[in-house]
């Protein structure tokens, strides 16, 4: 039973559309993360949050934005999707880095 949920699982959308990828966790974790990954390839940290109203950009520059209004919710938004945004987006949460991450199932985004 997943404790971190990502929706949608798959999304195909046209260029220029605004999209929001949802991520929610029920574990009360303060730390949450978004990673971008081409299938089976390296994971790139694009955003992270250490708590409510705290968000930071990660190692990989991304045109997406995030918000953290509630502890359990960490949505990622693309204002204008482009084909270069086609990728898998993985959300994760952690009670502390030394405990590791719990990952969601991911959203596979295709922009046509």
């Amino acid at each position, binding site marked *: 039973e997943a404790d971190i949920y990502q929706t949608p699982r798959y999304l195909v959308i046209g260029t220029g559309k605004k999209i929001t990828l949802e991520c929610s966790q029920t574990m009360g974790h303060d730390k949450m993360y978004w990673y971008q990954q081409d299938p089976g*390839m390296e994971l790139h940290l694009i955003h992270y949050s250490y708590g409510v109203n705290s968000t930071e950009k*990660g190692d990989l520059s991304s045109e997406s934005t995030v918000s953290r209004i509630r502890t359990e919710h960490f949505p990622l938004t693309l204002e204008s999707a482009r084909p270069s945004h086609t990728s898998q987006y993985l959300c994760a949460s952690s009670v502390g*880095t*030394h405990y*590791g991450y*719990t990952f969601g199932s991911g959203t596979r985004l295709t922009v046509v």
Partner: protein
Amino acid sequence: AQKVTQAQTEISVVEKEDVTLDCVYETRDTTYYLFWYKQPPSGELVFLIRRNSFDEQNEISGRYSWNFQKSTSSFNFTITASQVVDSAVYFCALTRGQNFVFGPGTRLSVLP
């Protein structure tokens, strides 16, 4: 700076063979944690093991075993009697402050 190297990009073995996945890391931290994650074709990342820098005991869990050697900065992962269900991409990760550094992954294919 922290870095994780997984030199084996892809490995193919025949079912029931043993296979070792290599992980070499770099860090200046005296306290750190190392992890292995499995990413099956479905895309989610599954936590396998955590090891802290003060615990060099090797660990065995069923067909899985891990060999942590600080002297060589390595944290290798061995699957004994591999099975087709072991086919996945395996990622080694190292703590970096409140985040992780992931290796590039090793794609393991176990052929029937």
